[in-house]
């Protein structure tokens, strides 16, 4: 009999599409409702209700859902701009929370969530790559002394999705910094949305916080991002607490830019040499008429191919030429969160860790705007 009752906050075209199905697949959990705040924009509430319908669950207002007897876990994917308010409300109700990344769209919101989590004393975990097999291998190589001391850490998160569209000739991005707006229908701020993965990895792998940030943002691949005045690419040079440099490359590079999901890797320069860990090894490579990847149809509301539901709508085929020996485990992060609730162990990435990641990203925007080094000390 499941020991945890779970509520999902969000809907289709949010990461709740995947996360809530991972909870539903775990025998320890009973997903009882999809919920969200009242008064949402019509399109958002419709998409939330669609996911609830697909999962054969009721759709409830958040405060009503929090009253359901026995509910102890929230899987939270509200719009970034609402995360401070919604997550704090759930923590005040005594919930364990599994959160979408990034934790919030501003440092103030992030630290409000952290304070609420401290008061609640419940378990918080923010989605990351820390529980993937390749990131765990990297961490083990550091922890067991295989690498020796680290001299530099390089982390990449390049998402090979989206229909390339020409940025106007001669367009050079002038970064304006963060205005705390992150929710757009057709695109996302990619330093924020993709950059959080490598920032999270660099700090988790080394056990260190970031001391300073120098960053660049760019509009390289997509007209949609340029029209919204948001970046599709970001690079950061970080200095960790002990002076070790860490570099971050993050962005969305187009569906045809890589044979799998994109370059997602960690390279370690260390006392004992060069070490590389990535999501695309070990693999077989298959080249045949059957594995040629056709140009997929463009979804009107998701040209960046962000969501499983829209890829399903346009019947987008999978890339097949690189195939992992062991398929990636999409439920590992949720399973690790449930393990932590039951064992009392600390999750790999907590709300407090994630609040620091938000600080780093915000410093990145400020650095890209001013072209100056931003100190976090």
């Amino acid at each position, binding site marked *: 009999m499941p020991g945890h009752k779970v509520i999902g906050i969000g809907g289709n075209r949010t990461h709740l599409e995947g996360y809530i199905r991972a909870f539903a697949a775990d025998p320890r959990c009973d997903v009882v409702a999809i919920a969200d705040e009242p008064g949402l924009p019509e399109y958002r509430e419709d998409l939330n209700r669609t996911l609830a319908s697909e999962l054969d669950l009721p759709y409830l207002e958040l405060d009503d859902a929090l009253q359901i007897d026995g509910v102890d876990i929230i899987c939270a994917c509200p719009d970034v701009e609402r995360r401070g308010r919604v997550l704090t409300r759930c923590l005040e109700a005594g919930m364990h929370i599994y959160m979408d990344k990034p934790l919030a769209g501003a440092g103030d919101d992030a630290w409000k969530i952290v304070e609420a989590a401290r008061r609640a004393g419940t378990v918080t975990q923010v989605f990351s790559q820390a529980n993937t097999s390749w990131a765990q291998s990297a961490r083990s190589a550091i922890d067991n002394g295989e690498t*020796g001391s680290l*001299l*530099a850490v*390089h982390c*990449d998160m*390049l998402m090979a999705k989206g229909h*390339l569209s*020409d*940025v106007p000739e*001669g*367009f*050079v*991005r002038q970064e304006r910094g963060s205005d705390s707006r992150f929710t757009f229908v057709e695109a996302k701020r990619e330093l924020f949305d993709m950059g959080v993965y490598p920032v999270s990895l660099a700090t988790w792998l080394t056990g260190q916080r970031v001391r300073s940030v*120098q960053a*660049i943002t*760019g*509009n*390289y*691949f997509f007209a949609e991002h340029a029209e919204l005045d948001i970046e599709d*690419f970001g*690079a*950061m*040079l970080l*200095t960790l607490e002990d*002076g*070790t*440099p860490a*570099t971050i*490359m993050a*962005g969305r*590079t*187009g569906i*045809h*830019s*890589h044979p799998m999901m994109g*370059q997602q*890797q960690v*390279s370690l*320069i*260390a*006392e*004992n*040499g*060069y*070490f*590389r860990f990535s999501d695309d090894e070990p693999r077989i490579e298959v080249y045949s008429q059957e594995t040629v990847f056709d140009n997929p149809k463009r979804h009107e509301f998701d040209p960046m191919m962000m969501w499983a539901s829209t890829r399903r709508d346009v019947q987008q085929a999978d890339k097949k030429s690189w195939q992992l020996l062991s398929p990636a485990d999409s439920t590992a992060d949720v399973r690790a969160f449930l393990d932590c609730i039951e064992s009392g162990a600390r999750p790999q990435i907590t709300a407090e860790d994630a609040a620091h990641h938000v600080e780093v990203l915000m410093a990145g925007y400020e650095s890209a705007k001013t*072209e100056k*080094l931003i100190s976090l000390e």
Partner: protein
Amino acid sequence: MKFDEWDQLAAAVSRSVQAGDIGTPRAARITLHLFRESEESDAVSGLTEYVVESASQWFGAEPSARWPTTPDEHVEVVMVKWPNGASALISASQGTRGRLGGDFALLGSRGSIYHRFEGSGN
């Protein structure tokens, strides 16, 4: 891994760029970890600048800004920006033991080029 492998790679990349395979080059990620004969050998100084020269050919201009850091005399890391908005993260280092190698990515407006340097261990 010998550094002349870089020259061969840079030439191949230039041919691909000139053929229009990836559209306009926008961003590069280059990590090189090379062999050093002994603890007393010359330091790494100048390796990243050599790589920046190649990248400048692909991006079609000289850099407008560089942010270097040298945490160790045998490690150089630099972030570079060009006037057309292009950027690069370059790390060059040398070690006397362990695995050599590195990785290369050049991202363009219409596609990408990747390469992995497979060095032997010492």
